[in-house]
């Protein structure tokens, strides 16, 4: 089930999601957008257009690193991989997210989603 989240709600989560996916291996843009959809069972769908600006921002912060790679077919793709700084940030963000979920559970009861 694809779902459009409120932009502001997704704004803080999207970089963590991207970093988490990239922590499992380098990917190019399209591959990454597919992976996010697949891993979240199509619940999280980043607007594909906003994915690239997001990647450039992470690159500016030196959390990911982009590299052009030419495939045997001759097609050039820009692969993104997480940097050590990105990994550190991911660890911190994951701890914070865990705390956030805990807090949300406390507020909304056992189910995170309010009745």
């Amino acid at each position, binding site marked *: 089930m694809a779902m459009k989240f409120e932009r502001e709600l997704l704004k803080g989560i999207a970089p963590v999601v991207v970093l988490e996916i990239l922590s499992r291996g380098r990917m*190019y*843009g*399209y*591959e990454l*957008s597919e992976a996010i959809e697949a891993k979240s069972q199509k619940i999280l*769908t980043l*607007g*594909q*257009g*906003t994915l*690239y*600006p*997001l*990647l*450039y*921002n992470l*690159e*500016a*912060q030196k959390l990911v690193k982009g590299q052009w790679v030419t495939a045997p077919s001759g*097609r*050039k*793709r*820009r692969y993104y991989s997480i940097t050590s700084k990105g990994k550190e940030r991911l660890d911190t963000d994951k701890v914070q997210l865990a705390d956030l979920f805990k807090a949300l559970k406390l507020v909304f009861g056992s189910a995170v989603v309010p009745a």
Partner: protein
Amino acid sequence: MKDKDNKEAFGNLPDCVADYIRLVIKKMRWQRKACADVQAELIGHFEDALKDCKTDEEREKTAKKLIDNFGDAKLIAVLARRAKKRCRPLWQKILIHSFQALVIVSIYLSICGVYISSGKPNISVNYVEWLNTYVRQGRDESLNIAPLLKKAAELSIDEPNWLKKSNASWPGDFNETQLHEFENWLAQNKQVLETLRKALDKPYYWNIYDANKSDFTNMQVLASPMKELSNFRRLAKLVNWQIRYSAFKNNFEEATNKAIELCDLGQRMQGNGMLVEQLVGIAIESTGHSAISQMIDKTTPTTEQLERIQNFLQQNYNDTVIDISGERALVYDYIQRYFTDDGKGGGKPVRQGTGFAGKNTLQIIFNILTFNLPDKKEIIEQIDNIYDTCQQGFQTANLETMKEQLNKALYNSPMLMKIVLPAFEKVGELSWRVKTQRDGLITTLAILRYRQQTGKYPDSLDELLNKGFINKMPYDVYRNGPLTYRKTNNNFILYSLGEDLVDNGGKVIYNDKGQPRIWPQKDGDAVFWPVPHPVK
């Protein structure tokens, strides 16, 4: 060719996708390389997304869906540009920000530059003409000394070089050859001295400034008088030597007449015209005093001769006050040339006029940068206030009070005036100094007369005054009280404390050439009697 390359880059992608990507890149408006990277990435993305489509129709349908999913091309372009900007290395960011700051500052400064150079002054008054009318005071041209004085100065022949370098102050100090050359020099200048004699028959001195060069600010107006003033000083030197020579030849009458004339000329040049002319007047009067001192030191004048000189100096004792109206006119001219005119007497400074925009450089810069320049009316009011304060200061016999008043004016004045005002203080001091010197000479003459008549020197200056040998106590501007007088062994000493305001017991200070300094700056006094002699 470029279009062809561009089409090839999009390969088999549907036109709608190519148009979409082109729009994103166009709206991105960023570095070519960054745009090319983004374009390549987007092309790759769409190619991957469409690779499984079997038919053109399916490709077209899926492409449109993808474009919808991508969102507004302009928004994507803006976000991509911002993100790519952040990717720049730090040095590039600093460089770019510095350049941007520089551009902003340059633009701001250019605006300030336009602000201080915009507007046109209105030159409505010929202040040189005004000054000519002011100094002439409605008198007939035939009463003016200046034309004949200029003629005499032009005719004068410079003193021989050896005399310029000589320490001698009296013709008796010359050797035979020198005396012969000296007499020749005086003879060559006979016509000059006769012209000067004729000039001094006229009662007033005023300069005539070239009104055609009406721009005071480029100083051309003063160039010609400056040259003439230098000739006047040379003329005064010639007369000074003529006086000494006449006295040396026992022609005391002629020497006295010429000395009186010299003092008279110096006095007439004060209190009128530009400051520099009045300064030369002070110097000429001082030369006259000095010549008389030498005469009475080197010869033995009779009581009548002494009385005649004293009477002249007392009767013509003219408390001339330095007049700075010429300088005021110069500043007014400056203001009319470097302030705009709003037709109501107001206006703002332009170009060099900004020198009036504050008390110091920092304040001027601040006022320019904040577009807070003073109004012409305000500046004229300030200038009038400053000049009135200075003029009042010149009338004050107490040097400290005068300096206080002038400093008060200086503190409140715009920066440009601060350049001029210290000169006023010095001129004020010099003006009072020559008066003290004159008092010293009058008192010396009176004491010598007293001695000739009573056979002794007076015990005090009070005694001299009480017995009618002088008509007022001689004033020492550096003491703000009477001159210092003491009887010594068969002689007396009379002096002013001088610039250091300290009584050094009448100590004379000599320069490197062994010449006595009349007004030493420190550690000595201005001694009027006994007349200080050069060190041989």
